[in-house]
């Protein structure tokens, strides 16, 4: 939201603020000690389960850990192409 407003007003975000945001994100991963491999496995497992119910766009799917106040949240953004009404459709 703030990013969008910044863009509208043509004002570039200060690099100090960008540094802080990038640090906060990277430290969530560092502190959680979750390797990229674990995240990839988790992503693949989620795809497997969700694919039973709907067709999803795997390429645009994003999954990450985020800071939610004092706790860490797993945030997934999974674009749905189409619902599968017949659950037995999948292989």
């Amino acid at each position, binding site marked *: 939201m703030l990013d969008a407003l910044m863009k509208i007003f043509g004002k570039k975000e200060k*690099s*100090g603020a960008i540094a802080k945001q990038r640090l906060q994100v990277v*430290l969530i991963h560092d502190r959680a000690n979750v390797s990229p491999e674990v995240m990839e496995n988790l992503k693949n497992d989620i795809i497997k389960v969700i694919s039973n119910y709907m067709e999803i766009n795997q390429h645009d799917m994003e999954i990450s850990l985020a800071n939610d106040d004092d706790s860490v949240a797993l945030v997934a953004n999974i674009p749905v192409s189409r619902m599968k009404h017949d659950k037995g459709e999948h292989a």
Partner: protein
Amino acid sequence: MSKIFVITSGKGGVGKTTTTANLGVGLAMRGQKVALIDTDTGLRNLDLLLGLENRIMYDLIDVTEGRVPYKKALVRHKKYETLFLLPTSQVKDKMAVNPEQLVKLCDEMRKEFDYILIDCPAGIEQGFKTAIAAADVAIVVTMPEISAVRDADKIIGELGRADKDTIKLIVNRIRPQMVEAGDMLAMDDINDILSIDCIGQVPDDVKVVTSTNRGEPCITMKDSQAGQAYRNIVGRIMGENVPFMKFEKEGFLARLKHVFGM
């Protein structure tokens, strides 16, 4: 009985050795009896920063391997006579000392000194584990830069895992103009991220370079901003309540430009 500090950072080049030299000289200037132990074996530099490089006879490894008693290896500072350096070896490597040896040595030295400061090598491997083993307090030095803050966070985690729970932060090489312009992480940002008690904010100062050239830490220079910041840290270490210094503000023209978003 002395208080033992380890000065550590994870990342190299943030100013661990400079901090150790300045705090050592500063404490000695205040009449304290201080020992500085260089544990950066193979890459020793604390002797250079103190101007003591030509006086070394024995080193830390000679002591830990039992060839000489530690008192024989100590180098007394020329000017500050209550300041002593225990240099390390320039030819051995980090595996030459283990944590148990350093703990044993510090226990022995504790009776003689008010403060023992241990200069830790960069990294999180064996050299780091040895350097922190004997410390009562860990001072983490960082810079307002993402890589340095990330490494500081990692080091704080490692210290916690080693049950070193008294951790203090020094933020070095702050450029107040850049912070004011929003182009450098501010103290508040770093405090938000690391959540560690901060005992020092040291501005970037060309006098650190010139004083290092001469082998005289900048804490002795009255007109050095970094020197003032280090003197303040020394006061805080000695239990005084010293307010954080205000950095020199940018000039009128720069401020005007800032107001007009230029």
